[in-house]
Structure formats: C-alpha cells, structure tokens
C-alpha cells in the first residue's frame, strides 16, 4: 500500500491524540444512538432499546481498543507507553534503579575511560598527519642499544637515503631564558630545519625554520611553544621578530607552534636550529647527539625500509670505520607508545572484566526483581498482554536503565580522564593527547546497548515464561525457581571467577610495584637535597670561569647549617642525564671493531658520602686532585668485575681523553636512571681534573648534592647560596627521593588504576554473593523455621548458610585461579621482581576472597538464625 498518503494520518495520530480519541468516542456514541433509534422503531421502549443496542455493540472500550490497535503509529505509541511506564516503575523502586544504574555506570565508565586512553594512545598514534610514515633510525652496538647519530653519520645518511622524503635530527638541550622577567630554565630542542616538514606541522604564528637556518650565522632564530608564548609573552602576537636571550646568546623569534604541538615530549618549550656546521658538531664529529626521524616516501613498507637500511648501513660508513654496529628503524608510534602498549592492554582487559562483572551483577538484580514481579506479570498476562508485549516492556526497562547507566558512565569517563590528566599527565605525557572523541562515544553507546540487551534479555524471557496461574496462586517457587536459581548461580560463579582473575592481576602488579620501590638504588636517598644549576655561555665563557664558580659554590655550600656531606656531580642519578663514553685500558686494547664504554660521572670530593654511595676499596677523591695533580678515577664494581674479575683494579690506568688516570677506588653499583635496570659500568673522575674542552662542553650543568640534618631548610639555603653567587642562574631544587619517585610514576599510576578497578570488581562480586545468599535465605525461610523448630541451633543454621556461600564462591574462585594462572603470562613484560605465578599472590588472593565471600554471606546468614519458626511456617 502506498506510504505517502498515510503520512497525514500518521502525524495526526501522534500529535493530535486527544482530538482523534474524541472523534472516535463521538462516532461510537452516534452509532449507539442510531442503533437505539432503530430498535425503538422496531417497537422497544427507549431504555430497552439502548440496552439492546449496547449489547449488540459488544463492549465500547474493546471496540475502541481494536480501532487503536490498527491505527498508524501504533508501534511508536506502544513504545512510548512502555517508556513512560518503565520510568514510572523504576521511580517506584528508587533503590533498585539507582543500584543498577550506578553499577552499570561504573562498568561502562571505567571501560569508556580506558578505551579512550587506549584509543588515543595506541590506536590513533602520534598526532601528526600520516604518522605511520614517520620512522626513527637508531644504531645498535654490541654493548649498547638505542644509540643516536653523530653529526657525521647524520649527514652521510641524509645524503644517501632514497627512502625518506625528509630526514631530520634533533637533540634535547636546556636553555636559560633571560631578559624577560626572572631568568627561566626551559627544556628545548636543537633541530635540523626540516623537522617541521618531516612532522607535517606548521607554525600557528609566524613560520617554521628555513633550510638556510641550519647554517652557522643564520641559526640564531627560535620557535616558541604555545606554553612558553603564553607564560612569558602573554600570547601577544607581536612577538615575531623580537629578540630573546637563550643561554646568553641573542635569538630572534620567528614562530610559535600550535598549542597541541609538543614534539618530542610535553616539556619541549622551544626549538632552535641545529647548525651541523657549527662548533658544537664540528668539534665533536663523533659524539652521538642526534635522534633521527624521517618521513618515508609514500608506499615504502616497514619491511622494505629495514632491508634498505641494512644495505645502506654498510654503504654509509666510511671504509676505515670498522665499528661493529647495526642500523635499524623503529616507527615513531612504536617509539613513543611501545612501552605503554602492554600496561594499557592489561588495564583494558581489567576494565572489560569489570564491565562483565557489572553486567552479571545487574542481570542478577534484574532477575531477582523479575521474580518479585511475577504476580504483576501474571495480572498483566491475564488482562490480555501478550508475551511479546511483556518482553518488550521488560526490555524497555532494561534499555532505560542502560541509557541512564551509559550517561552516568560517560560522565564518569569524562571526569575520570580529567582526574587522570591532573595526576598522571606530568609523568605519562601521552595522556595529554587523550580525549573523548567520536570513536569513544560510539564505544560507550555500543557497550551500553550491548550490556542493556545482555542483562535485560535473560530476565525478560525468564519472567515472561512464568506460569500465570501458579504465580497468582503464590506458588511460583516450583515453577520458575529452578531455572532462575541456576541462572543466578552461574552469574555469581562468573562474577567471582572474573573478580579472582582481576584481583590476582592487581595483586601481582602491587607486589611488583612494592618490589620496585624496595629496590636498593645503591645509595641512601633519604635526607638528600639536590640543586641543579646551569652555567650560561655569556657569563661563563671558558673552563676557568666555570671552575671558579664550581669551587666557590662548593666552599659556600659546605658551610651551610645542617649540611653533613656535600658534593657535586654533572650527571646525577635519576636526574635525567647520562654521558656514555668510550675509554681505553692501559695495555689492554679493545677487540677490533669494538670499544670499551662506560658512563662518565665527573664529581667532586665528598660526592660519595653526600649521596651515600659506599666505597668498597680505596679512598675518595681529595681536594688535592686538581688540574696539576696526576689524574685519578674511581670505577664502580660493575666495571671492576667486567675488566678485572679476579684482581683489584686499584692502580690500573684508564683514559677517556688524553691523559691516563689511575684507579684509586672501587665504588658500589648504583641505579642511574631506572630502578628496574641493571647497573651500568661507571667511571667517576674528579670534576677539577676535567680537560678544559670537556668542561665547557659537558660540565656546565652542575648538581650540588647535600646530605642534610634538616632537608627543608637546606633546600632554601641552597637556592639562596647559589643565587647570591650569581642571580642569573636558574636553580632547580629537588629531593633525591622525589627524583626517584618520578621514575616510577608510571608503574605507580597503573598499579593505582588496576587497584581501583579491582576494588570496584570486588565490591560488585560481594554484592552479587550477598544478593544470592539473601535470596536463598528468604527462599528457604520455611525450611529454616522447621529446622529451628526441630532443635537446630543458631550455630547449625549459620553453618548451613555459610557452607552454601562457600560452595557458591569456591567454584568461582577455583575457576578464576586457573584462568589467572594462564592469563598472568601476559603480565610478564610489566612485572618486576616477582614471577607471574608468584606463590604468595596465588595463596593470599583466594584466601582473601573466601574471607570476603563469607563476610558477604554472614549478613543474610545471621538473619536466618533469627527466623521465628512460627512465623516462618505461615510464610509464603
């Protein structure tokens, strides 16, 4: 039948319902009137005639209902009715509705939150156009991985590569910005001019670098980050062309990047050109400064890239260079998020479990409710509601709940994301890019819909299958009891099993985190305050000036009240800096094609006692170890063991520069940048004996280390002392402990997250157990009454119910343990210090779960012991 002519009727039925109804009523009454008149003509008196007419008519309301039944838009109208009715029913039992909505919101919200993070960090990748074409190049040496490029190597590759459309390098650098308010320290990047083309990002204001600005003389230009522009220049658009002073040298501002641009990480505040023909790179042609990133030509696959990188790698090295190394490519995405993938996927699984537990819980609640509503359903059916209609009605209620749950869940996700950014963004920079987008919204909608159907369908079918006669007679237990009971038990079993897996995972991660915090860093970080001071070129042009500042500051700081031990180092553990260098051993040349390498630590006398690094053999540097005295060095145990496993290294000679240094002591190993890494081989040299070119190059960043009886006052004294010597120096104060804590922020963060999810899961599982046991007690009310009447003690009853609880949960726990045993291998990469089958975890978690389950069962069990046999027998 044609559709178009029906539209007016359809709209009229929906919008002018009252008029349509009135019309129908009029028509019906007119029919009855006419019919009455006819009967009167046939000779009946009016009352009888009317009665006869009405009888012949056959039920005014039924006829009207039949008309309504065929009206257009009837389907929508019915759903609308269902919807209003669902709201009314749900409002009538607010506790139930609220519980269901909250449980769902928790499940959906947590899942949406984790999905948003996974989506933006892992699925979307770095925020640059066609980011899948961005690859980084690295070198692997026999003794070291992740080695960056020297200027020389970079230029050679850039000249010869045929795979990359653009090829760029960058290196981090600290900059002291002076001339605008207080001097400020900014972390920045020296980049080859093409970096911005490689990334495919343009400046928000002004321009990016020109190719010519990668040459000495033209390289005094700077691009600001949005944050720096805001903080230091108040977002003024006239900054372009303005001069600024960085590390004592004048630069001209040529551009400002967009707010979202934060390559290579969030703390990058400015970018300046790296002039590869400049003194820094020319004087150290073989120093591995540059990280390399390139944009592949369209269509180059990663496999092809690696093959050609292998080939080109052999061609690029000059023939006289016999270093053993391999070049390799890593996608930018892999580089930035590779180590986040496993923890994030584990967390995503955790929330998926949580969502399933929430659904099982809600299904259980709905089932209990459907059970309680059997008489209602029976009456509806008796009044003529079809089974479809009853199911539709119950599904509508589930849909309304899912909608409310989904909306609340979305709110939880939005709020949770802000909270996570607030606490985690500093240490997990990738979080900054996480936002709730269309994909995430679709995800929330789908999970809500799916969970709505999941938990709504089962109970709806069970409830609508009720035998109505039985329901009305009040003997429903025998009719739907067994099927529904089985469903409830399966649901609780699933909840407990899922919760066990989650808790095992959580416990493993917590144990691993505790193991991490218990790692001995090799020194005593308590009561140690550090002050980082960067010396700028304009005020400290040569090694002499730097050395004078070093000595003055050290002397002043030694006299600070409360200072027990004072030292200086250029590369502080957990300070974020490292200086790897090659070295030689007198009389022991390295095998061909390789070099001996170690981490260099220029330090002052007193540094070992200030930081609490034990000296295993020999003695500390002394004040007399200066530029005129013979060179000395202290090596750590790792180095000593590597090169002199069976003899004392004391008195042996090594060199990393021109002069031979004799080893005067062996220090204990320390962790330098990560608690979960092994200790590197280290060489400490006296700062005062550093060659002049090394001082001006690597010795400008001094960190004063003070072991203090009163760290709080020392912190401010330290800043004051250094600023009194030179007010232009930017001083960064930190306690050693806080520096260490920053490096474990990420594991702490994920441990917290999984902890929170596990607590949710545990709560929900408890709720499930409680619900089922409470229901069981009501069901067996009569039986318990009889038992008590026959002389069962409170203790017997308690035992009876608790045994039931135990039986219910034990199966779930066992299943959960078995699943966890196999699943825990996925945690392998993110666990530290414990095995994935950590026995303590696998014993403690089930014990804990049983205790909690018994607690959940105890409340209803106690109620069972108070059953009055007389009332109970009258029950039902």
């Amino acid at each position: 039948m044609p559709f178009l002519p029906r539209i007016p009727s359809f709209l009229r039925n929906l919008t002018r319902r009252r008029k349509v109804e009135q019309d129908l009523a009029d028509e019906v009454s007119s029919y009855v009137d006419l019919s009455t008149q006819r009967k009167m003509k046939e000779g009946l008196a009016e009352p009888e005639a009317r009665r006869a007419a009405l009888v012949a008519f056959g039920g005014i309301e039924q006829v009207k209902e039949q008309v309504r039944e065929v009206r257009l838009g009837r389907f929508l109208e019915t759903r609308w009715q269902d919807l209003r009715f669902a709201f009314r029913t749900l409002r009538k039992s607010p506790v139930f509705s609220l519980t269901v909505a909250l449980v769902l919101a928790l499940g959906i919200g947590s899942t949406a939150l984790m999905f948003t993070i996974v989506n933006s960090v892992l699925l979307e990748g770095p925020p640059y156009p066609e980011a899948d074409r961005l690859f980084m190049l690295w070198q692997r040496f026999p003794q070291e991985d992740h080695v960056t490029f020297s200027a020389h190597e970079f230029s050679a590759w850039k000249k010869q590569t045929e795979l990359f459309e653009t090829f760029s390098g960058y290196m981090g650098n600290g900059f002291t910005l002076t001339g605008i308010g207080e001097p400020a320290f900014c972390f920045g990047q020296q980049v080859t001019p093409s970096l911005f083309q490689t990334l495919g990002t343009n400046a928000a204001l002004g321009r990016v670098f020109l190719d010519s600005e990668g040459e000495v003389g033209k390289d005094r230009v700077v691009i600001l980050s949005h944050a720096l522009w805001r903080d230091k220049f108040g977002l003024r658009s006239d900054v372009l062309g303005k001069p600024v002073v960085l590390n004592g040298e004048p630069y001209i501002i040529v551009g400002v990047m967009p707010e979202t641009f934060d390559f290579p990480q969030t703390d990058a505040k400015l970018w300046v050109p790296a002039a590869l023909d400049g003194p820094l790179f020319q004087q150290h042609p073989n120093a591995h400064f540059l990280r390399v990133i390139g944009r592949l030509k369209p269509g180059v696959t990663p496999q092809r890239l690696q093959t050609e990188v292998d080939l080109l790698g052999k061609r690029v090295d000059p023939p006289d260079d016999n270093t053993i190394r391999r070049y390799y490519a890593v996608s930018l995405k892999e580089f930035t998020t590779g180590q986040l993938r496993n923890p994030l996927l584990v967390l995503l699984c955790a929330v998926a479990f949580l969502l399933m537990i929430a659904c099982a819980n809600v299904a259980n609640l709905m089932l209990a409710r459907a059970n309680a509503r059997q008489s209602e359903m029976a009456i509806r059916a008796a009044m003529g509601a079809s089974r479809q209609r009853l199911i539709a009605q119950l599904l509508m209620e589930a849909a309304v709940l899912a909608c409310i749950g989904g909306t609340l869940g979305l709110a939880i996700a939005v709020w949770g994301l802000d909270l996570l950014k607030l606490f985690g963004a500093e240490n997990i920079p990738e979080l900054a890019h996480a936002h709730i987008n269309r994909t995430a919204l679709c995800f929330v909608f789908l999970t809500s819909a799916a969970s709505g159907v999941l938990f709504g369908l089962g109970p709806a079918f069970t409830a609508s299958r009720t035998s109505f006669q039985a329901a009305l007679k009040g003997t429903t237990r025998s009719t739907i009891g067994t099927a529904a009971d089985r469903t409830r038990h399966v649901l609780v079993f699933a909840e407990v099993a899922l919760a066990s897996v989650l808790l095992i995972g959580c416990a493993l991660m917590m144990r691993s985190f505790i193991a991490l915090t218990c790692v001995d860093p090799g020194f005593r970080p308590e009561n140690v305050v550090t002050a980082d001071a960067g010396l700028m070129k304009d005020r400290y042009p040569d090694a002499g000036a730097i050395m004078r500042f070093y000595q003055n500051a050290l002397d002043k700081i030694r006299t600070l009240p409360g200072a027990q031990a004072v030292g200086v180092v250029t590369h502080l553990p957990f300070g974020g800096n490292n200086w790897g260098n090659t070295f030689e051993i007198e009389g022991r040349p390295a095998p061909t094609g390789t070099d001996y390498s170690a981490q260099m630590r220029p330090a002052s006398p007193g540094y070992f006692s200030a930081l609490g690094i034990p000296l295993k053999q020999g003695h500390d540097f002394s004040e007399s170890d200066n530029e005129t005295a013979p060179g000395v060095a202290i090596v750590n145990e790792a180095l000593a063991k590597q090169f002199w496993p069976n003899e004392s290294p004391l008195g042996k000679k090594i060199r990393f520069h021109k002069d031979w240094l004799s080893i005067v002591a062996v220090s204990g190993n320390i962790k330098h940048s990560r608690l979960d890494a092994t200790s590197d081989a280290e060489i400490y040299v006296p700062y005062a004996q550093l060659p002049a070119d090394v001082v001006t190059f690597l010795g400008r960043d001094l960190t004063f280390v003070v072991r203090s009886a009163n760290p709080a006052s020392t912190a401010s004294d330290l800043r004051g002392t250094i600023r009194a010597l030179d007010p232009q120096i930017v001083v960064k104060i930190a306690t050693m402990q806080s520096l260490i804590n920053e490096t474990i922020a990420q594991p702490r963060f994920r441990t917290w997250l999984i902890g929170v999810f596990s607590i949710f899961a545990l709560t929900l599982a408890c709720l499930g157990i409680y619900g089922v046991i409470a229901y069981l007690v009501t069901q067996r009310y009569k039986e318990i009454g009889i038992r008590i009447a026959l002389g069962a003690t409170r203790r017997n009853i308690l035992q009876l119910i608790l045994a039931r609880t135990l039986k219910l949960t034990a199966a779930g726990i066992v299943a959960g343990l078995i699943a966890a045993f196999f699943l825990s291998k996925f945690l392998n990469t993110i666990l530290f210090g414990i095995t994935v089958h950590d026995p303590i975890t696998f014993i403690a978690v089930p014990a804990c779960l049983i205790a909690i389950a018994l607690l959940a069962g105890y409340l209803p069990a106690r109620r069972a012991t108070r059953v009055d046999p007389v009332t109970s027998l009258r029950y039902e």
Partner: protein
Amino acid sequence: MPLQIIYMSNRDDEFTADLLQGTLDLLVLKALAAQPLHGLGVSSRINQITKGTFDVKPGSLFPALHRMEEASWLKAEWGESENNRRAKFYSLTKAGRRQLETETEDWQRISLAIGSALRAS
C-alpha cells in the same frame, strides 16, 4: 444464522486474518460504492446486499473503517443522519474506487478458481 465477520487482530493467525480482512474490505467498499453512509448504515447495507449472510459487528467494522480511511480509500465527514442525528459519513475516494475495482476483479478470479477446483473430480 448470519455469518459474523470478525476482524482478527491476532497476528499469529495471519492467513485467516488476511483472508477475512480482504473480504470485509471488499464488502465495505462495495457498500459505500452507491452513496456515503455512516457506520450503522454500512453495517445494514452489507447485511442487505449479502441478503443477510454477513452481519458485521462494530468490533470489526470500526477498525476496518479507520484502517481504510488511513489508507485514503475512504473519506469521513460529520453530517446529519436521517433523523437529524450527528453521524460520521464515509464515502469512497478515487483511490477507494480503484481499490474496489481491483479487489472485485481479484475476488472474481479467486472465486472462479475455487469454484472450478471444487467442481473438479
């Protein structure tokens, strides 16, 4: 005893429903072919033209009239009845006449076919 046409709203029995509904539709259209009638009029007219075979009860008549009106086969207007009562008069629309024609043809074809089927031995 006249046959009662009961419009079946029970969708489980769709075949019967369709058949009966089709018959009822045809009868209503035919009843209205001559002149506009109100509901009771339609019912009496059907009774009259089927020589008392069909007695259409309001429970079937009203849904049928409303459905056909929504399908634009019928047009309804309030008017005065024979004894000055207000009543809703239904008349055929152009689409309704066309529908009557097609349904008449269909019915004749079906009844011929069934008739010959029943005569066959």
